[in-house]
């Protein structure tokens, strides 16, 4: 009886086991995003050229490129870009230095943690641009209040990412270092700093975006130069091609910062 069952089984047709393991592993194709973007621009350009879209409300990509070219040729582009770059650079650097120092203090010392977290929890949710008028009162109408607004925004983001990074360093590594009598400063430099670096770099990515957001906002409120001021002026004069040129430049700023952080991550986090 068993033999017959075995024979029947052998005679039955062998069927392949269905593959069920596909999906849930998305991979970005290298060129698909660029091709999609080119298609969108082409449709946009075609719609504008055919008169389907009013160029006052939505200028074509080519007219935006022409506007950028004009700005570059007249030297206005560099004037606005350099003003914004100076504010972002100075504000980001000051905010980052203070944020890293505060974040490490909160991550390492009891009193700093108790005091720091309370202050950060209370002050972080405040939109920093709301403080610009007060900062103008305190610091005057020059570059200082704009730089200070950016520095404030960057500071909180950085401090939070740094102390979260310090907290996330595996405790077993710290205990290992302590078990070899490694001094405190060496543990901070060789264990905690590299261990917290992924979180710190992720914080830099966010704080750079915050700096970009705040520089535009600050320039729209109180500046005659800078990309934010330029975009606002172009909007007031209904020069939408110039307005979009400013937006494109901001987008390029963001892309450049993202690339820079990617490069830093590749270099510094090779071990991951």
């Amino acid at each position, binding site marked *: 009886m068993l033999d017959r069952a075995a024979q029947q089984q052998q005679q039955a047709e062998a069927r392949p086991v269905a593959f069920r393991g596909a999906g849930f592993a998305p991979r970005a194709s290298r060129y698909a995003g660029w091709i999609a973007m080119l298609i969108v621009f082409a449709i946009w350009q075609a719609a504008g050229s055919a008169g389907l879209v009013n160029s006052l409300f939505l200028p074509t990509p080519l007219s935006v490129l022409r506007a950028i070219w004009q700005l570059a040729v007249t030297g206005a582009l560099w004037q606005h870009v350099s003003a914004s770059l100076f504010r972002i650079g100075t504000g980001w650097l000051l905010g980052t230095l203070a944020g890293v120092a505060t974040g490490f203090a909160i991550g390492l010392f009891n009193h700093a943690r108790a005091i720091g977290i309370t202050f950060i929890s209370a002050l972080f949710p405040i939109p920093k641009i709301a403080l610009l008028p007060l900062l103008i009162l305190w610091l005057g109408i020059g570059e200082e209040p704009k730089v200070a607004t950016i520095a404030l925004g960057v500071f909180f983001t950085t401090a939070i990412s740094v102390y979260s990074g310090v907290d996330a360093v595996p405790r*077993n*590594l710290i*205990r*290992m*270092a*302590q*078990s*070899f*009598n*490694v*001094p405190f400063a*060496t543990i901070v430099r*060789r*264990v905690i700093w*590299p*261990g917290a670096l992924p979180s710190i770099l992720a914080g830099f990515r966010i704080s750079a975006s915050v700096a970009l957001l705040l520089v535009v906002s600050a320039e729209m409120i109180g500046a005659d130069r800078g990309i934010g001021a330029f975009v606002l002026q172009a909007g007031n004069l209904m020069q939408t091609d110039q307005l979009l040129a400013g937006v494109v430049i901001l987008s390029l700023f963001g892309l450049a910062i993202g690339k820079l952080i990617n490069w830093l991550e590749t270099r510094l986090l090779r*071990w*991951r």
Partner: protein
Amino acid sequence: MDLIADHISHRFGALDVLDDVSFTVGAGEVVAIVGPSGCGKSTLLSILGGLLEPAAGAAKWRGAVPSGSLNPLTFVFQDFALLPWCTVEANVEFPLLATTLSRAERAALVTDALQRTGLADFRGALPKQLSGGMRQRVGIARALAVKPAILLMDEPLSALDSQTRELLLEDFIRLLADGAMGAVYVTHNLEEAVRIADRIVVLSRRPGRIREIVPIAITRSERGGLEAREKLLALQNELWSLIRNEAIDAEREVQHA
């Protein structure tokens, strides 16, 4: 150099973990600590190595530190505790950075430790490129580099597969054979305990108290023979009968929790 557990008790909050544990590890002696899950074996080791302050009692040492020892009480960790951003060589050198040794002296110690653990060809590799067994070898090389008097090993083989475990246990036995280093070896595995130790401290379930200290009459060098193996197996069974019921209770307690 002797290491002394002097009436050590400890609690975490309201939970009593260790209760009045006392024993001494003599120079060059290997003492295994066994007991049911949660009996405080690893806590006891942390206290002995100065990484945890006991609620009562103390860890003490007596005698002279062997000459050249840079860190007399040195841990080998269950999870290896390697710096993932450092190469094998940098991991082994890491504890030496805290010393006054010159770069050349450090390099000599690192090379010696890497050679003793069979890692000389892997000095430039990152931990993520190594198998679990190789990672633990790096942990051992790092410990050897500081020339310890007593190794404090916290379940050093429990994260490894059985074949790697066997190979590394043989390495441990070889490294400890000349009696230059002593060891406190915390393990769940009774076979490991009877193969490596001179004495076995059996702890009760929580709060861990010493139930028995079992000396192994057969010297470590004589444990390869068939007769010795039979005796060790009998001892292993004896130890299991000592802790079996408590291990079952501890397991139920964990499930209940």
